[in-house]
Structures are given as C-alpha cells and as structure tokens.
C-alpha cells in the first residue's frame, strides 16, 4: 500500500514536471518559430501573392495600384534623393574620412544586415543610427532621422543592396532576445486614442482600405525603405514611418531612434528575413 502511494506520488510529480516544462517551453521566446508563423500567416492569407512580392506592399495587394506604380517606376519619384545620396556618400568629411570608412565593405551592399544587435552597447543599431554615429565620430553634426539627408543616404545604401535578402541575426545574448521580444510587444500593443496596434492595420487588415490608402502587409514592410510618399510630398525614413503611424492613431510619437523604435525595427526586419531589399520605394 505504501509502495503504491509512493509510486503515485512519483507519477504525479513527473506529470507536474512535464506540464511545467511544456509551459516553460511555450513561453520561451523562439524567434525562428515566430518568423515561420509570420510568414505562413501571410502566405496563407494571400495565396496568390508571390512571396518576394510582399516587399512591394500595397502594390502586391491591388492590381490597379500596381499598374500605376509600374508606370511611375519609369521615372521614380525617389530618383533625386538617390542621386543626392550617392553624391553625399562619396563626399569625404572635413577630416578626410568618409562613410565608407564606417561600414563593412565600404558600406556597399550591406543594408540587408541592418539593424543588428551591438553586443558592446547592448542595444539594437539601425542603419540610420549607424550613419549618424559615423558622422559624429568624424566630427560632423548628426542629421535629422526622419527625412532629407538621412533619407537620401539610406536610399543610396538600400539601392546598393537591392535584391539581397534580409539577413538579420539574433546573437546568443539574452539582451538581444529581450530587444527582439520588446520589439514584438511594441508591434502588437494597442496605443493612441484610436486604440490601434501596428498589427491592427498590417496583420489584421492588409489589402483593405483605410480612407484612400491600401494597407500594406507587415511582412516585408521595411524592405522598401526609405520611401517617397506622395502624402508627404517627399522622402521619409523608417523613423518617419514609425512616428507618423503613431500620430495617425492619435498617439504622441516617441523620439526617433528611441529604444522602442529600434527594437520594433529589429523585430520587423527579423520576421522578414529572406525577403529581398527593394528600397528605395515609392508609396501613395
């Protein structure tokens, strides 16, 4: 009798242990599984859209818009920014150094590796941030993160990476995983008086209209950045995209390149791994 009681105790303990282990495994962050689920969700939702075409945002969702965009691409509205960016990139700083000295491979064809997690700083480093750090290290004043020079420089760097798949890494560092998780939380968290999250538009409603716009899918949404937006009558960076999204839902935007936005960019870029860089882009 005592033996049977002891055996049942052991069985119960083992069962409890197994349940706890399963729960822990389910709660443990798994970016690779997230990325697969993210990709599967959009592929299933839009079975007629070729996977690589998601980087074209609303144009992958609407035939009429696509035709207009293809016509516009004959003389793309971002061309002036691209030319300006190329010239700026090649112009040395006052100290004789240049942007090329700050980046791997002289900054050519590296866009797809940004953002990355800097284990020294313990934070996510975006391309915009890296460009301004490069300027400051070389005695130059930083640029605004949202448009103008920053948009031109990132346009040129994106152009040199066109066709290269996003290759965002999460190093074996708990801080990197935490940054990724925080980015995910930001993406799904409702905010602003309209009570919208990023996912409300770009997961629940891609392809649907919000006023005159067609919402882009979240997957591949950063691959075309920076973009010329007709609504802005000019170029805008990822920072501009994030801050205006927040304003549109009546939330006070955070400061560009705040930790939250850096983590969000890290998450969104990671789940788009494998999709080609298509920037600079043009959007209505």
């Amino acid at each position, binding site marked *: 009798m005592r033996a049977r009681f002891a055996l049942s105790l052991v069985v119960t303990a083992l069962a409890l242990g197994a349940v706890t282990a399963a729960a822990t495994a389910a709660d443990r962050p798994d970016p690779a599984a*997230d990325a697969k*689920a*993210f990709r*599967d*969700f959009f592929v*299933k939702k839009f079975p007629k859209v070729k996977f690589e075409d998601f980087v074209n945002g609303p144009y992958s969702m609407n035939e009429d818009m696509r035709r207009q965009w293809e016509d516009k691409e004959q003389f793309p509205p971002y061309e002036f920014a691209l030319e300006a960016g190329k010239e700026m990139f090649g112009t040395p700083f006052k100290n004789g150094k240049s942007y090329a000295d700050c980046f791997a491979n002289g900054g050519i064809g590296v866009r797809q590796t940004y953002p990355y997690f800097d284990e020294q700083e313990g934070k996510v480093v975006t391309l915009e941030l890296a460009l301004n750090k490069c300027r400051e290290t070389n005695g130059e004043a930083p640029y605004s993160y949202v448009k103008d020079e920053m948009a031109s420089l990132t346009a040129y760097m994106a152009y040199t990476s066109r066709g290269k798949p996003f290759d965002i890494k999460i190093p074996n560092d708990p801080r990197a995983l935490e940054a990724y998780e925080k980015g*995910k*939380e930001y993406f*799904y*968290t*409702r*905010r*602003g*008086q309209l*009570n919208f*999250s990023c*996912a*409300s538009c770009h*997961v*629940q409603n891609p392809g649907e209209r919000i006023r005159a716009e067609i919402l882009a899918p979240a997957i591949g949404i950063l691959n075309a950045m920076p973009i010329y937006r007709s609504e802005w009558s000019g170029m805008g960076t990822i920072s501009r995209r994030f801050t205006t999204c927040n*304003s549109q839902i*009546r*939330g*006070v935007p*955070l400061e560009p390149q705040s930790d*939250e936005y850096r983590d969000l960019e890290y998450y969104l870029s990671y789940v788009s791994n494998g999709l080609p860089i298509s920037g600079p882009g043009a959007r209505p």
Partner: protein
Amino acid sequence: MTTTMNKRPNTAMKKIMFAAIMMAAGAMPARAASEADFKAAFAAADSAEKEAGRLRNQWTTTEAALAAAKKAAETANFDQAVMSAREAEALAKASIFQATSEKERWKDMEIR
C-alpha cells in the same frame, strides 16, 4: 498555424472612456469657475499625463486638451479652461488604462 486575433469590441476601453467623459461633463461647476479651480483641474490632468508619459503612451488628444485649457486660462475663460483640463485628465486616465491593460492583452493578437 493559428492566430488569435482579437476581434471582439474593446468594451473595457469603451466603458472607461464613457465613464471618464461623463465624469468630466457631470463635474462642471454650477458657479463660474475660478482661477483656483483651473489650477486644481490642470494639476490633476498634468499629473495623469505625466504618468502616461512614464508608460510611454501619451495621446495627442490629451496634449491638445491641455493646450486648450492653458489657452482658455490665458484669456481668463476659466469655465472653458476647467472643462478642457477635465477632458485632458479623462483622456490621460484612459491612456493609462490602455497602457496597463495592454501589458498582457497584446499577446491575444500575436500570430502563433
């Protein structure tokens, strides 16, 4: 692959917004408001908005209501100033509620 998209109306948020607006409307003083009334109402709103700021979740409409309260007070229109300040406080409290409840609720929307 499943996703647990939260499609139900956000009733909790609606209730708190409604209650907050009714509170702001119902709390209008019968007598004309004084500068002291404005200062008290503004301090309460400002404090709630600072808390929303700590939660990184301020709303543009709260900021606009605070600015409107200040502007009305500058022209000694304290009835309007108090009303705008109370509206700001209600909005700030709703944004605090949103930020607090979303600490866990965001997971309902996650693609899994």
